[in-house]
Protein backbone atom coordinates (compact mmCIF):
# COMPACT_ATOMS: atom_id res chain seq x y z
CA UNK A 1 0.00 0.00 0.00
CA UNK A 2 1.17 3.51 -0.80
CA UNK A 3 2.67 5.59 2.01
CA UNK A 4 0.58 8.59 1.05
CA UNK A 5 -2.70 8.55 -0.79
CA UNK A 6 -4.40 11.71 -1.95
CA UNK A 7 -7.90 10.95 -3.23
CA UNK A 8 -10.04 13.35 -5.24
CA UNK A 9 -8.90 16.49 -3.41
CA UNK A 10 -10.87 19.70 -3.96
CA UNK A 11 -10.20 23.20 -2.71
CA UNK A 12 -12.15 26.34 -3.46
CA UNK A 13 -11.34 29.94 -2.66
CA UNK A 14 -14.62 31.77 -3.06
CA UNK A 15 -15.83 31.04 -6.58
CA UNK A 16 -12.49 29.84 -7.82
CA UNK A 17 -11.77 26.14 -7.57
CA UNK A 18 -8.01 25.80 -7.15
CA UNK A 19 -7.96 22.01 -6.85
CA UNK A 20 -10.49 20.15 -8.96
CA UNK A 21 -10.09 16.59 -7.79
CA UNK A 22 -6.45 15.67 -7.45
CA UNK A 23 -5.48 12.06 -6.87
CA UNK A 24 -1.91 11.07 -6.07
CA UNK A 25 -0.27 7.95 -4.68
CA UNK A 26 3.21 8.05 -3.24
CA UNK A 27 5.33 5.04 -2.30
CA UNK A 28 7.83 5.11 0.54
CA UNK A 29 11.26 6.18 -0.65
CA UNK A 30 9.87 7.79 -3.76
CA UNK A 31 10.64 11.31 -4.94
CA UNK A 32 7.83 13.01 -6.80
CA UNK A 33 8.36 16.33 -8.52
CA UNK A 34 5.26 18.42 -9.12
CA UNK A 35 5.51 20.93 -11.95
CA UNK A 36 3.10 23.27 -13.66
CA UNK A 37 2.41 26.94 -14.36
CA UNK A 38 1.99 29.19 -11.32
CA UNK A 39 -1.50 29.42 -9.92
CA UNK A 40 -2.38 25.84 -10.79
CA UNK A 41 -2.73 24.70 -7.20
CA UNK A 42 0.65 23.02 -6.61
CA UNK A 43 1.30 24.82 -3.32
CA UNK A 44 -2.32 24.46 -2.31
CA UNK A 45 -2.02 20.73 -2.91
CA UNK A 46 1.00 20.47 -0.58
CA UNK A 47 -0.75 22.53 2.10
CA UNK A 48 -3.88 20.47 1.87
CA UNK A 49 -1.86 17.30 2.49
CA UNK A 50 -0.99 18.32 6.05
CA UNK A 51 -4.05 20.55 6.33
CA UNK A 52 -2.21 23.83 6.70
CA UNK A 53 -5.01 24.60 4.27
CA UNK A 54 -8.27 22.74 4.86
CA UNK A 55 -9.39 20.90 1.73
CA UNK A 56 -13.09 21.16 0.91
CA UNK A 57 -13.52 17.64 -0.37
CA UNK A 58 -11.58 14.42 -0.79
CA UNK A 59 -9.29 12.42 1.46
CA UNK A 60 -5.64 12.20 2.36
CA UNK A 61 -4.22 9.08 3.95
CA UNK A 62 -0.80 8.65 5.52
CA UNK A 63 -0.47 4.87 5.82
CA UNK A 64 -3.50 3.83 7.93
CA UNK A 65 -4.29 7.32 9.19
CA UNK A 66 -6.86 9.43 7.43
CA UNK A 67 -5.38 12.91 7.75
CA UNK A 68 -8.56 14.56 6.56
CA UNK A 69 -10.66 12.88 9.26
CA UNK A 70 -11.90 15.20 12.01
CA UNK A 71 -10.97 12.60 14.59
CA UNK A 72 -7.32 12.56 13.61
CA UNK A 73 -4.97 14.51 15.86
CA UNK A 74 -3.60 16.75 13.16
CA UNK A 75 -0.64 17.90 15.27
CA UNK A 76 0.56 14.32 15.59
CA UNK A 77 0.32 13.86 11.84
CA UNK A 78 2.10 17.11 11.09
CA UNK A 79 4.94 16.11 13.37
CA UNK A 80 5.60 13.22 10.95
CA UNK A 81 5.35 15.25 7.75
CA UNK A 82 8.19 17.67 7.10
CA UNK A 83 7.38 20.91 5.33
CA UNK A 84 9.96 23.12 3.64
CA UNK A 85 8.68 26.54 2.63
CA UNK A 86 9.67 28.74 -0.27
CA UNK A 87 10.74 31.54 2.07
CA UNK A 88 12.25 29.24 4.72
CA UNK A 89 10.18 30.59 7.65
CA UNK A 90 12.89 29.96 10.19
CA UNK A 91 11.93 31.30 13.60
CA UNK A 92 13.77 34.62 13.61
CA UNK A 93 14.23 34.80 17.39
CA UNK A 94 15.96 31.42 17.65
CA UNK A 95 19.43 30.26 16.65
CA UNK A 96 19.82 27.63 13.94
CA UNK A 97 20.25 25.01 16.66
CA UNK A 98 17.11 26.13 18.53
CA UNK A 99 15.14 26.21 15.29
CA UNK A 100 15.93 22.54 14.78
CA UNK A 101 15.54 21.71 18.47
CA UNK A 102 12.14 23.34 19.03
CA UNK A 103 10.03 20.57 17.53
CA UNK A 104 12.11 17.91 19.27
CA UNK A 105 11.68 19.30 22.77
CA UNK A 106 8.18 20.77 22.44
CA UNK A 107 6.42 18.34 20.13
CA UNK A 108 8.35 15.10 20.55
CA UNK A 109 9.13 15.83 24.20
CA UNK A 110 12.77 14.82 23.93
CA UNK A 111 15.15 15.81 26.67
CA UNK A 112 17.23 18.88 25.97
CA UNK A 113 20.44 16.89 25.72
CA UNK A 114 19.00 14.30 23.35
CA UNK A 115 17.41 17.04 21.26
CA UNK A 116 20.70 18.88 21.03
CA UNK A 117 22.47 15.72 19.85
CA UNK A 118 19.83 15.05 17.26
CA UNK A 119 19.70 18.66 16.07
CA UNK A 120 23.48 18.79 15.68
CA UNK A 121 23.39 15.57 13.67
CA UNK A 122 20.90 17.10 11.26
CA UNK A 123 22.79 20.38 11.02
CA UNK A 124 25.86 18.32 10.24
CA UNK A 125 23.92 16.51 7.54
CA UNK A 126 23.10 19.78 5.77
CA UNK A 127 26.65 21.02 6.31
CA UNK A 128 25.86 23.72 8.85
CA UNK A 129 27.07 22.39 12.19
CA UNK A 130 29.45 25.35 12.36
CA UNK A 131 26.51 27.75 12.16
CA UNK A 132 24.54 26.20 15.02
CA UNK A 133 24.68 29.38 17.10
CA UNK A 134 23.90 31.78 14.25
CA UNK A 135 20.53 33.49 14.03
CA UNK A 136 18.59 33.24 10.75
CA UNK A 137 19.28 36.89 9.93
CA UNK A 138 22.99 36.09 10.00
CA UNK A 139 22.66 33.32 7.43
CA UNK A 140 22.41 33.46 3.65
CA UNK A 141 19.20 32.33 2.00
CA UNK A 142 20.74 29.03 1.02
CA UNK A 143 21.95 28.42 4.55
CA UNK A 144 18.54 29.32 5.97
CA UNK A 145 16.86 26.87 3.64
CA UNK A 146 19.30 24.14 4.65
CA UNK A 147 18.55 24.82 8.32
CA UNK A 148 14.86 24.55 7.54
CA UNK A 149 15.51 21.19 5.89
CA UNK A 150 17.40 20.11 9.01
CA UNK A 151 14.42 21.28 11.09
CA UNK A 152 12.17 19.03 9.04
CA UNK A 153 14.57 16.07 9.08
CA UNK A 154 15.00 16.14 12.86
CA UNK A 155 11.38 15.15 13.35
CA UNK A 156 11.97 11.77 11.67
CA UNK A 157 9.39 12.52 8.99
CA UNK A 158 7.81 9.78 6.95
CA UNK A 159 7.58 12.29 4.16
CA UNK A 160 8.86 15.78 3.38
CA UNK A 161 6.92 18.30 1.31
CA UNK A 162 9.01 20.93 -0.46
CA UNK A 163 7.14 24.02 -1.65
CA UNK A 164 9.38 25.67 -4.27
CA UNK A 165 12.41 25.40 -1.97
CA UNK A 166 14.78 27.27 -4.29
CA UNK A 167 12.48 29.88 -5.80
CA UNK A 168 13.40 32.60 -3.30
CA UNK A 169 17.14 32.03 -3.67
CA UNK A 170 19.80 33.84 -5.63
CA UNK A 171 20.97 31.62 -8.50
CA UNK A 172 24.36 30.94 -6.92
CA UNK A 173 22.71 29.64 -3.74
CA UNK A 174 20.33 27.21 -5.42
CA UNK A 175 22.98 24.54 -5.92
CA UNK A 176 23.76 24.03 -2.25
CA UNK A 177 20.08 23.45 -1.43
CA UNK A 178 19.57 21.11 -4.36
CA UNK A 179 22.68 19.17 -3.34
CA UNK A 180 21.14 18.51 0.08
CA UNK A 181 17.88 17.41 -1.52
CA UNK A 182 19.63 15.11 -3.98
CA UNK A 183 21.46 13.49 -1.07
CA UNK A 184 18.15 13.00 0.74
CA UNK A 185 16.62 11.34 -2.29
CA UNK A 186 19.61 9.01 -2.51
CA UNK A 187 19.24 8.20 1.19
CA UNK A 188 15.70 7.04 0.45
CA UNK A 189 13.70 9.91 1.94
CA UNK A 190 10.15 10.15 0.65
CA UNK A 191 9.66 13.57 -0.90
CA UNK A 192 7.15 15.59 -2.86
CA UNK A 193 8.86 18.57 -4.43
CA UNK A 194 7.14 21.47 -6.14
CA UNK A 195 9.84 23.11 -8.23
CA UNK A 196 10.80 24.63 -11.56
CA UNK A 197 14.29 23.08 -11.42
CA UNK A 198 14.06 20.82 -14.41
CA UNK A 199 17.57 19.45 -13.98
CA UNK A 200 16.59 18.24 -10.51
CA UNK A 201 13.32 16.84 -11.80
CA UNK A 202 14.99 14.97 -14.61
CA UNK A 203 17.81 13.45 -12.61
CA UNK A 204 16.27 12.87 -9.18
CA UNK A 205 12.52 12.37 -9.59
CA UNK A 206 11.06 8.90 -9.72
CA UNK A 207 7.97 10.47 -11.11
CA UNK A 208 7.03 13.86 -12.51
CA UNK A 209 3.52 15.14 -11.98
CA UNK A 210 2.35 17.85 -14.36
CA UNK A 211 -0.47 19.95 -12.95
CA UNK A 212 -2.45 22.65 -14.65
CA UNK A 213 -5.78 24.29 -13.89
CA UNK A 214 -6.22 22.40 -10.63
CA UNK A 215 -5.93 18.91 -12.10
CA UNK A 216 -3.13 16.44 -12.76
CA UNK A 217 -2.69 16.57 -16.52
CA UNK A 218 -0.16 13.76 -16.76
CA UNK A 219 2.29 11.90 -14.57
CA UNK A 220 5.07 9.46 -15.26
CA UNK A 221 8.80 8.78 -14.99
CA UNK A 222 11.01 11.69 -16.16
CA UNK A 223 12.26 9.88 -19.25
CA UNK A 224 8.78 9.34 -20.57
CA UNK A 225 7.57 12.80 -19.56
CA UNK A 226 10.46 14.56 -21.27
CA UNK A 227 10.71 12.34 -24.36
CA UNK A 228 7.27 11.11 -25.18
CA UNK A 229 4.52 12.70 -23.15
CA UNK A 230 1.02 11.51 -23.97
CA UNK A 231 -0.59 14.91 -23.63
CA UNK A 232 0.77 17.57 -26.04
CA UNK A 233 0.41 20.26 -23.39
CA UNK A 234 2.89 18.41 -21.15
CA UNK A 235 5.60 18.49 -23.80
CA UNK A 236 4.91 22.12 -24.56
CA UNK A 237 5.22 23.13 -20.91
CA UNK A 238 8.36 21.07 -20.32
CA UNK A 239 10.08 22.59 -23.33
CA UNK A 240 9.18 26.11 -22.26
CA UNK A 241 10.22 25.68 -18.66
CA UNK A 242 13.47 23.93 -19.59
CA UNK A 243 14.42 26.86 -21.83
CA UNK A 244 13.46 29.35 -19.12
CA UNK A 245 15.23 27.76 -16.18
CA UNK A 246 17.87 25.82 -18.00
CA UNK A 247 19.01 22.55 -16.51
CA UNK A 248 21.05 23.88 -13.63
CA UNK A 249 21.96 21.30 -11.02
Amino acid at each position, binding site marked *: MALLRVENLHKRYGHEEVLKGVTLHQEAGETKVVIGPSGTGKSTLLRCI*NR*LTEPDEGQVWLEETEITSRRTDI*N*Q*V*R*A*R*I*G*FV*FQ*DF*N*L*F*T*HLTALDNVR*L*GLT*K*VRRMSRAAATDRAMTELERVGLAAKAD*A*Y*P*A*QLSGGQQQRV*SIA*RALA*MDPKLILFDEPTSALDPELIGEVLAVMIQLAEDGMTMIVVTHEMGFARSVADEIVFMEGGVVVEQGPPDKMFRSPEVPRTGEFLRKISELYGESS
Partner: protein
Amino acid sequence: MISSVWVEIAPYVPVLLRGLLVNIELLLGLISLGLVVGLITALIEVYAPRAMGWAAGAYTWFFRGVPEIVLLFLFYFGLSQFGVPVSAFFAAVLALGLRSSAYQAQIFRGALQSIPHGQMMAARALGLSRVRAIALVILPQALRLSLAGWSNEFSSVLKDTTLAWGIGVVEVMRQASYVRARNFTLTLPIYITVALMFLVLTYAGNLAIGLAERRLRVPGLEGHR
Protein backbone atom coordinates in the same frame (compact mmCIF):
# COMPACT_ATOMS: atom_id res chain seq x y z
CA MET B 1 18.95 84.22 47.55
CA ILE B 2 18.59 81.18 45.35
CA SER B 3 20.65 79.02 47.60
CA SER B 4 18.59 80.05 50.61
CA VAL B 5 15.45 78.73 48.88
CA TRP B 6 17.02 75.32 48.51
CA VAL B 7 18.04 75.34 52.15
CA GLU B 8 14.41 75.95 53.01
CA ILE B 9 13.24 73.14 50.78
CA ALA B 10 15.68 70.56 52.06
CA PRO B 11 13.63 69.61 55.15
CA TYR B 12 10.64 68.84 52.93
CA VAL B 13 12.48 66.54 50.57
CA PRO B 14 11.88 63.40 52.66
CA VAL B 15 8.13 64.10 52.64
CA LEU B 16 8.19 64.58 48.90
CA LEU B 17 10.15 61.36 48.47
CA ARG B 18 7.60 59.54 50.58
CA GLY B 19 4.97 60.88 48.21
CA LEU B 20 7.03 59.84 45.22
CA LEU B 21 7.24 56.34 46.62
CA VAL B 22 3.44 56.18 46.43
CA ASN B 23 3.67 57.23 42.78
CA ILE B 24 6.09 54.40 42.16
CA GLU B 25 3.74 51.97 43.89
CA LEU B 26 0.90 53.26 41.74
CA LEU B 27 3.08 52.85 38.68
CA LEU B 28 4.03 49.26 39.47
CA GLY B 29 0.43 48.35 40.18
CA LEU B 30 -1.08 49.99 37.14
CA ILE B 31 1.54 48.99 34.61
CA SER B 32 1.39 45.33 35.69
CA LEU B 33 -2.38 45.39 35.50
CA GLY B 34 -2.14 47.10 32.13
CA LEU B 35 0.41 44.58 30.90
CA VAL B 36 -1.64 41.53 31.79
CA VAL B 37 -5.01 42.88 30.65
CA GLY B 38 -3.48 44.59 27.61
CA LEU B 39 -1.74 41.43 26.43
CA ILE B 40 -4.89 39.35 26.86
CA THR B 41 -6.92 41.99 25.03
CA ALA B 42 -4.45 42.06 22.14
CA LEU B 43 -4.42 38.26 21.88
CA ILE B 44 -8.22 38.26 21.80
CA GLU B 45 -8.29 40.97 19.15
CA VAL B 46 -5.87 39.10 16.92
CA TYR B 47 -6.66 35.43 17.52
CA ALA B 48 -10.09 34.99 19.12
CA PRO B 49 -13.39 34.61 17.23
CA ARG B 50 -14.73 37.82 15.78
CA ALA B 51 -17.43 38.44 18.40
CA MET B 52 -14.80 38.40 21.15
CA GLY B 53 -12.61 40.63 19.03
CA TRP B 54 -15.42 43.16 18.83
CA ALA B 55 -15.86 43.09 22.59
CA ALA B 56 -12.14 43.70 23.02
CA GLY B 57 -12.32 46.51 20.48
CA ALA B 58 -15.19 48.16 22.38
CA TYR B 59 -13.18 47.84 25.57
CA THR B 60 -10.14 49.61 24.16
CA TRP B 61 -12.36 52.21 22.53
CA PHE B 62 -13.88 53.09 25.92
CA PHE B 63 -10.65 53.29 27.88
CA ARG B 64 -8.84 55.24 25.18
CA GLY B 65 -11.73 57.63 24.72
CA VAL B 66 -12.48 58.78 28.28
CA PRO B 67 -10.15 61.28 29.97
CA GLU B 68 -8.07 59.80 32.73
CA ILE B 69 -9.29 62.19 35.40
CA VAL B 70 -12.87 61.24 34.51
CA LEU B 71 -11.97 57.55 34.75
CA LEU B 72 -10.47 58.17 38.19
CA PHE B 73 -13.67 59.82 39.42
CA LEU B 74 -15.84 57.16 37.83
CA PHE B 75 -13.96 54.35 39.53
CA TYR B 76 -13.48 56.04 42.90
CA PHE B 77 -17.01 57.37 43.36
CA GLY B 78 -18.71 54.86 41.10
CA LEU B 79 -17.50 51.73 42.86
CA SER B 80 -18.40 52.97 46.32
CA GLN B 81 -21.85 53.95 45.06
CA PHE B 82 -22.35 50.38 43.90
CA GLY B 83 -21.49 49.22 47.40
CA VAL B 84 -17.86 48.33 46.67
CA PRO B 85 -15.88 50.57 48.99
CA VAL B 86 -12.46 51.10 47.49
CA SER B 87 -9.47 53.05 48.70
CA ALA B 88 -8.38 55.97 46.57
CA PHE B 89 -5.13 54.13 45.88
CA PHE B 90 -6.90 51.01 44.63
CA ALA B 91 -9.30 53.02 42.50
CA ALA B 92 -6.35 54.85 40.95
CA VAL B 93 -4.54 51.61 40.11
CA LEU B 94 -7.71 50.22 38.61
CA ALA B 95 -8.67 53.28 36.56
CA LEU B 96 -5.18 54.11 35.32
CA GLY B 97 -4.26 50.43 34.89
CA LEU B 98 -7.26 49.65 32.73
CA ARG B 99 -6.67 52.82 30.72
CA SER B 100 -3.08 51.73 30.21
CA SER B 101 -4.22 48.22 29.24
CA ALA B 102 -6.13 49.72 26.32
CA TYR B 103 -3.02 51.51 25.09
CA GLN B 104 -0.78 48.53 25.73
CA ALA B 105 -3.26 46.35 23.84
CA GLN B 106 -2.72 48.58 20.79
CA ILE B 107 1.05 48.18 21.11
CA PHE B 108 0.88 44.39 21.45
CA ARG B 109 -1.74 44.03 18.72
CA GLY B 110 0.44 45.92 16.26
CA ALA B 111 3.43 43.78 17.15
CA LEU B 112 1.48 40.52 16.90
CA GLN B 113 0.11 41.48 13.50
CA SER B 114 3.54 42.41 12.21
CA ILE B 115 4.87 38.87 12.63
CA PRO B 116 4.72 37.28 9.16
CA HIS B 117 2.10 34.56 8.74
CA GLY B 118 4.82 32.13 7.67
CA GLN B 119 6.06 31.96 11.27
CA MET B 120 2.71 30.58 12.40
CA MET B 121 2.56 28.18 9.46
CA ALA B 122 6.04 26.84 10.11
CA ALA B 123 5.20 26.34 13.77
CA ARG B 124 1.94 24.55 12.96
CA ALA B 125 3.72 22.42 10.34
CA LEU B 126 6.02 21.14 13.09
CA GLY B 127 2.99 19.88 14.98
CA LEU B 128 2.59 22.66 17.53
CA SER B 129 -0.97 23.54 18.49
CA ARG B 130 -2.15 27.07 17.79
CA VAL B 131 -1.82 28.10 21.42
CA ARG B 132 1.69 26.71 21.75
CA ALA B 133 2.72 28.23 18.43
CA ILE B 134 1.61 31.60 19.76
CA ALA B 135 3.39 31.10 23.08
CA LEU B 136 6.65 29.69 21.68
CA VAL B 137 7.05 31.40 18.34
CA ILE B 138 4.81 34.44 17.90
CA LEU B 139 4.83 36.04 21.37
CA PRO B 140 8.60 36.06 21.95
CA GLN B 141 9.05 37.90 18.66
CA ALA B 142 6.10 40.23 19.20
CA LEU B 143 7.06 41.18 22.75
CA ARG B 144 10.52 42.15 21.65
CA LEU B 145 9.02 44.34 18.94
CA SER B 146 6.69 45.89 21.53
CA LEU B 147 9.47 47.23 23.71
CA ALA B 148 9.91 50.55 21.90
CA GLY B 149 6.22 51.41 22.06
CA TRP B 150 6.01 50.05 25.55
CA SER B 151 8.76 52.36 26.82
CA ASN B 152 6.64 55.24 25.54
CA GLU B 153 3.65 54.00 27.48
CA PHE B 154 5.84 53.51 30.53
CA SER B 155 6.99 57.14 30.70
CA SER B 156 3.46 58.27 29.97
CA VAL B 157 1.82 56.35 32.82
CA LEU B 158 4.66 57.18 35.18
CA LYS B 159 3.69 60.83 34.88
CA ASP B 160 -0.03 60.04 34.93
CA THR B 161 0.28 58.69 38.47
CA THR B 162 0.20 62.33 39.64
CA LEU B 163 -3.43 62.46 38.51
CA ALA B 164 -4.29 60.25 41.48
CA TRP B 165 -3.95 63.49 43.41
CA GLY B 166 -7.42 64.31 42.07
CA ILE B 167 -9.10 61.61 44.16
CA GLY B 168 -7.04 62.22 47.27
CA VAL B 169 -4.19 59.72 47.03
CA VAL B 170 -1.37 61.13 49.13
CA GLU B 171 1.27 61.00 46.43
CA VAL B 172 3.95 63.50 45.58
CA MET B 173 1.65 66.24 44.23
CA ARG B 174 -0.54 66.06 47.33
CA GLN B 175 2.57 66.25 49.54
CA ALA B 176 3.76 69.22 47.53
CA SER B 177 0.48 71.02 48.03
CA TYR B 178 0.77 70.43 51.81
CA VAL B 179 4.20 72.05 51.76
CA ARG B 180 2.91 74.90 49.69
CA ALA B 181 0.04 75.47 52.12
CA ARG B 182 2.50 75.89 54.94
CA ASN B 183 4.95 78.08 53.08
CA PHE B 184 3.56 79.87 50.08
CA THR B 185 6.89 81.33 48.98
CA LEU B 186 8.08 77.83 48.17
CA THR B 187 5.41 77.25 45.52
CA LEU B 188 7.68 77.39 42.51
CA PRO B 189 10.75 75.68 44.01
CA ILE B 190 8.67 72.81 45.32
CA TYR B 191 7.15 72.07 41.91
CA ILE B 192 10.56 72.40 40.29
CA THR B 193 11.76 69.78 42.74
CA VAL B 194 8.87 67.50 41.81
CA ALA B 195 9.62 68.03 38.12
CA LEU B 196 13.25 67.09 38.69
CA MET B 197 12.24 63.95 40.52
CA PHE B 198 10.16 62.83 37.56
CA LEU B 199 12.88 63.66 35.11
CA VAL B 200 15.23 61.40 37.02
CA LEU B 201 12.62 58.62 37.25
CA THR B 202 11.76 58.76 33.55
CA TYR B 203 15.41 58.74 32.65
CA ALA B 204 16.15 55.75 34.87
CA GLY B 205 13.13 53.86 33.57
CA ASN B 206 13.96 54.41 29.93
CA LEU B 207 17.55 53.50 30.61
CA ALA B 208 16.43 50.16 32.04
CA ILE B 209 14.11 49.50 29.10
CA GLY B 210 16.84 50.46 26.63
CA LEU B 211 19.13 48.01 28.36
CA ALA B 212 16.52 45.28 28.09
CA GLU B 213 16.04 46.11 24.43
CA ARG B 214 19.73 45.67 23.78
CA ARG B 215 19.83 42.41 25.72
CA LEU B 216 16.91 41.03 23.70
CA ARG B 217 18.20 42.13 20.35
CA VAL B 218 18.49 39.35 17.79
CA PRO B 219 21.86 39.44 16.00
CA GLY B 220 21.61 40.39 12.37
CA LEU B 221 17.94 41.31 12.58
CA GLU B 222 16.67 44.84 11.84
CA GLY B 223 20.12 46.06 10.95
CA HIS B 224 21.19 46.71 14.55
CA ARG B 225 24.85 47.23 15.21
